[in-house]
């Protein structure tokens, strides 16, 4: 004997031992439930961890996006921005710099891949591109290089073009004439999350490639030193530039938060379907009491057990199944993300992309993610088994025996 709480603890442990014995007696049935439940939790947890990894990476990487991006819309479609917008925008007080940029997509017919072409001012001179080791061009290539425009490629583009040691590549203009480029650098592989499909070149070369008029750009990048003024400046720009669409840094952040949110897409609906199917299975398994189980409950009641004790046993059984399945499922999910970069969900995320960026969505563990996984998996199971457990505990001993 000892203090009250010690007696209570011993009692709970004895009940737990009894519940484990009961689980062990039906080990094939319960083992099956643990396996299926672990798989359900594995899928939910993998999806959540992968999305959390992408969300965290995008938040970390996109912290330096332009303060304001100005586009031009005509009939709901994005159209080139006239360069007089630069002078017009410059009249708005509080702007540090305005950079016109030309960018767009290039469909590479041989591979079927889409590349993102970005033409920037002060390239290849000016501020160096971070993470790019500019290659020195040999004397033999100098003559040839003069006819080719410099370009920096993302790693995936370089592989897709199968350039090997060659440095020259030609792309088609809209009129099917060829424009030559000389690869002067590759983006570092560890920056693939933002650069894998990029071809960065001088703004005039991009205009030439897309056959864009010299007085046009795709959009304007505006830098604002005071973050508190961004919204006001955005409103002034919208009023000043007819047909403009102004996107602020905060809106880009919001887009990515919503894009990766739980409410987005059909993926979540599929997962809810999986949980619902499992809850039905759990209900069915828990509701169908075998004659042995009924006799067991009746015997326990004859021996003096209360309905509450029988329910406590059933609750412990469910809890043990849940906790073991939760630990196995989430453990497998971590292994899936850490060792295989989420190979099960990756095809869905990349879809029919021909150019497949190297994606490695490892998240930092967060309490709210664990709580969401727990609430989405364990709570429905406990809820599904509690009513059958109560029904089972209400068996009358005299009627059963």
């Amino acid at each position, binding site marked *: 004997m000892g203090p009250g709480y010690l007696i209570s603890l011993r009692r709970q442990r004895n009940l737990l031992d009894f519940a484990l014995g009961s689980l*062990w007696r039906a080990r094939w049935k319960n083992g099956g439930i643990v396996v299926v439940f672990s798989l359900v939790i594995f899928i939910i947890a993998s999806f959540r961890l992968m999305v959390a990894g992408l969300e965290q990476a995008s938040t970390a990487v996109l912290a330096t996006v332009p303060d304001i991006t100005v586009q031009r819309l005509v009939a709901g479609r994005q159209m080139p921005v006239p360069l007089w917008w630069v002078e017009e925008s410059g009249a708005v007080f509080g702007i540090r710099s305005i950079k016109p940029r030309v960018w767009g997509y290039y469909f590479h017919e041989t591979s079927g891949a889409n590349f993102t072409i970005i033409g920037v001012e002060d390239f290849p001179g000016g501020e160096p591109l971070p993470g790019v080791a500019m290659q020195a061009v040999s004397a033999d290539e100098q003559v040839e290089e003069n006819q080719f425009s410099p370009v920096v490629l993302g790693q995936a583009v370089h592989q897709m073009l199968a350039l090997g040691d060659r440095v020259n590549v030609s792309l088609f203009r809209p009129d099917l004439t060829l424009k030559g480029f000389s690869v002067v650098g590759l983006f570092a592989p560890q920056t693939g999350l933002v650069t894998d499909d990029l071809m960065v070149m001088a703004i005039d070369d991009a205009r030439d490639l897309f056959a864009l008029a010299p007085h046009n750009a795709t959009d304007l990048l505006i830098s604002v030193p005071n973050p508190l003024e961004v919204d006001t400046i955005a409103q002034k720009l919208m009023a000043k530039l007819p047909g403009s669409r102004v996107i602020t840094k905060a809106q880009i952040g919001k887009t990515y938060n919503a894009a990766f949110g739980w409410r987005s*897409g059909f993926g979540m609906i599929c997962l809810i379907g999986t949980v619902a199917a499992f809850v039905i299975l759990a209900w069915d398994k828990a509701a169908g009491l075998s004659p042995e189980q009924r006799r067991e409950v009746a015997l326990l009641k004859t021996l003096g057990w209360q309905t509450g004790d029988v329910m406590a046993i059933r609750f412990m059984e469910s809890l043990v199944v849940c906790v073991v399945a939760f630990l196995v499922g989430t453990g497998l999910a971590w292994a899936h993300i850490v060792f295989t970069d989420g190979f099960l969900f990756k095809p869905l995320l990349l879809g029919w992309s021909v150019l497949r960026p190297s994606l490695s969505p490892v998240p930092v563990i967060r309490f709210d993610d664990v709580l969401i996984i727990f609430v989405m998996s364990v709570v429905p199971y406990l809820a599904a088994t509690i009513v059958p457990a109560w029904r089972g505990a209400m068996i009358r001993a005299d009627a059963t025996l």
Partner: protein
Amino acid sequence: MKWMSKPRPSTWLGIIGGGLMFCQLILIGLAHVQLAARTSGQELMRAQVQRLGLSDICIATEARYIRHLAVTDQVAPFMDHPLALEYFPSGSLWAPVISSR
């Protein structure tokens, strides 16, 4: 007595549960080691985003509105209508940009 030396079922549960938690902690630790190794890459990416004025991360390249979600035409995703059925597989995992504004 012989049966007394045998561990109780709850002891086994503790051992198995503890083992599973230990394995999980090791995996979470490995994930954080991987993340720590990427810190320099993230610094570079932030610098590239700033230098080139990039607005989006490169995940799926199959549709232009998925590749550049933040700056795409508002009517381009979901086949020109926010409530139309999306046919690109990756589109099923992303919210339409129009809903975030």
